């Protein structure tokens, strides 16, 4: 096993060139220092035109990417197959997204300020006591958010094309264009679209979990979870309880490796669950989730059933030539919470920024190195967050005792403060070391107690 694989990202980049004793990966040791081109200064200046970039997929990632590109002076084409797509989604956005992306407040249907975590033995813990009055988790309708971002991109100069991306011809050299083949649906409802082609210099793949762009660049596959959700319209008096409260149910009955949820939406609740390892039992888990929430959603009518895949980790290859993946297509969904909207939008923005910078506002051709910068920046900024959430998932979603300990820990104020601070502002806050030590001890204590009780439980059913 090559030990370099275990070095942190920063370590890999700075590894000095050694005589390659490792026959397996000699290429990795050769430094790119000599090849590292700075900001396209050696790329040819484009004659008489701006850089052309196609953004495939018009969700949050695509919309933000297209807007940033258009603002940066790049000729942008945003290809989206369904303009009114009502995507199945949890719909939660953190507070920082509103500020960072200048979202209007009326996009947010609800502000969740309280959350309830419910353990397998129904111990219910309220979290949110540490939130300040201006802090909340925003619940949005995807169709509203997505179309707002697309319209804003259009206003900034992007060309929005209603079409379905089919395939892409990869050029052989560094200056030839990529040729995208797509079916245009302009003005047509239903029926087969007209086949068209588009020549661009770079492509951003923002077309989601089943990305075709990813397929065209052989990005590889990822493990994914299935999220299954039912939208239930519950009676008004019951809806009051969910006014600004979301619930999370954990337990083996609800999901073996994820959680079940009740999220309030504009005028109904979404009850759902997800799993990676037991996809075939998803309906069973959904029934269990509904049963656990039974008292609170009784009398409700199911108005919609939906399911969607959630990537569990990034694709092996997120970049190839002048094609980069962002958002769900790249696999930027966190573990533990399954949050994807913010990261999709942010990665779209970051990738677009890297292109704008590398092309000097659309005047020069870009090359792979410029897009690599986006990956560098992304990994440097968010890898700690992803890592922490991965550890949390591994430790606390393992088994019922672990989940009981999880819920017990969430009752602690310090935990709540750290959790919300890192969720709402997307930074891993270092925190107070003494409190961290206390937290570590309490965590170990909770886990041990829960596992001890589990040992007793096992004895009860020989």
């Amino acid at each position: 096993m090559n030990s370099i694989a275990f070095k942190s990202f920063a370590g890999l980049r700075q590894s000095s060139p050694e005589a390659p004793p490792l026959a397996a990966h000699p290429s990795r040791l050769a430094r790119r220092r000599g090849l590292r081109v700075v900001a396209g200064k050696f790329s040819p200046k484009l004659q008489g035109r701006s850089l052309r970039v196609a953004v495939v997929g018009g969700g949050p990632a695509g919309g933000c990417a297209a807007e940033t590109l258009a603002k940066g002076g790049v000729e942008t084409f945003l290809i989206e197959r369904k303009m009114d797509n009502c995507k199945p989604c949890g719909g939660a956005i953190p507070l920082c997204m509103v500020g960072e992306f200048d979202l209007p407040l009326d996009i947010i249907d609800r502000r969740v300020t309280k959350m309830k975590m419910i353990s397998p033995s129904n111990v219910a813990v309220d979290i949110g006591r540490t939130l300040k009055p201006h802090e909340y988790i925003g619940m949005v309708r995807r169709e509203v958010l997505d179309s707002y971002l697309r319209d804003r991109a259009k206003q900034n100069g992007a060309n929005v094309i209603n079409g379905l991306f089919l395939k892409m011809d990869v050029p052989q050299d560094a200056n030839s264009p990529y040729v995208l083949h797509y079916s245009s649906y302009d003005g047509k409802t239903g029926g087969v679209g007209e086949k068209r082609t588009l020549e661009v210099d770079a492509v951003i793949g923002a077309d989601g979990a089943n990305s075709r762009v990813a397929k065209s660049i052989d990005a590889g596959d990822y493990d994914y979870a299935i999220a299954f959700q039912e939208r239930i319209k519950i009676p008004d008096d019951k809806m009051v309880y969910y006014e600004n409260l979301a619930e999370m149910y954990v337990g083996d009955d609800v999901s073996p490796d994820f959680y079940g949820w009740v999220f309030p939406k504009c005028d109904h609740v979404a009850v759902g669950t997800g799993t990676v390892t037991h996809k075939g039992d998803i309906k069973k888990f959904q029934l269990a989730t509904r049963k656990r929430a039974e008292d609170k959603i009784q009398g409700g009518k199911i108005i919609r059933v939906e399911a969607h895949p959630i990537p569990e980790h990034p694709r092996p290859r997120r970049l190839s030539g002048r094609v980069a993946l962002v958002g769900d297509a790249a696999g930027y969904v966190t573990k533990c919470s399954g949050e994807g909207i913010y990261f999709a939008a942010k990665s779209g923005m970051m990738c677009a920024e890297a292109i704008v910078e590398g092309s000097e506002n659309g005047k020069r051709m870009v090359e792979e190195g410029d897009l690599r910068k986006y990956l560098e920046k992304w990994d440097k900024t968010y890898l700690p967050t992803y890592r922490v959430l991965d550890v949390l998932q591994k430790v606390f979603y393992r088994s019922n005792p672990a989940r009981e300990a999880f819920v017990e820990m969430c009752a602690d104020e310090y935990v709540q403060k750290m959790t919300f601070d890192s969720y709402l502002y997307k930074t891993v806050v270092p925190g107070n070391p003494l409190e961290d030590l206390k937290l570590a001890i309490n965590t170990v204590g909770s886990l041990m107690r829960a596992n001890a009780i589990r040992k007793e439980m096992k004895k009860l059913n020989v």
Partner: protein
Amino acid sequence: MQLRSMSTTMASFSPPSHLSATTPSPHSKPRLNKNGLLFSFRPRNLAFSPLKAAAESGAGTAVEPPLVEDSSLGTNGAAAVAAQTGQVKVVGGFLDPRWVGGTWDLTQFKKNGTTDWDAVIDAEARRRKWLEDNPESSSNENPVVFDTSIIPWWAWMKRFHLPEAELLNGRAAMIGFFMAYFVDSLTGVGLVDQMGNFFCKTLLFVAVAGVLLIRKNEDLDNLKKLFDETTLYDKQWQATWQDENSSTIKKE
């Protein structure tokens, strides 16, 4: 299959003559230990009601169930329902007289004037087991507020840590004695001199670590899986960088 195994277990146990199912009587201790096993998981296959009725009739008359030992059943079940034989409406969910207001009423666990923490642990284990098999809806009117940290640390120590510690120390002592003897017989180096030797100290360290980490046969595989798990996510993230260097070399 659970029914069958439960039946065999029950058949092999001879319960004390008259176990009151409901009241936290002086029988509570013996009831909770061995015969805690006997309480009803079986209702899942049989009708709820007859067993519950049998439970709180307290007279030990098994109404319907085929097994004779059933009189001891049902510290779980509708213990709180007034005594009546025959069909009892299933109130639903976990019911136990000591489970009051969403937590365990510690005053009902008194033994000789002090709280019987072992009984509390047993009761909570049974509640969780019940809920695992029969998940219930969480309700706002009857929230569960029990926190395991109210049970003092020494109760946990005495019950869980000490027996296992005894076991592991015993294993370590046995291994240590025989390793010392073995090394001495092979090399002639006595115990005191062995302690000064680096290789022997390494062996000692390996022996202690082995005793601590590998307690069952499955632990070997579990440890390997655990190690792979901790590094997997990182590898998935670094995958795109491995690609970078190889592709740049190709371009050259």
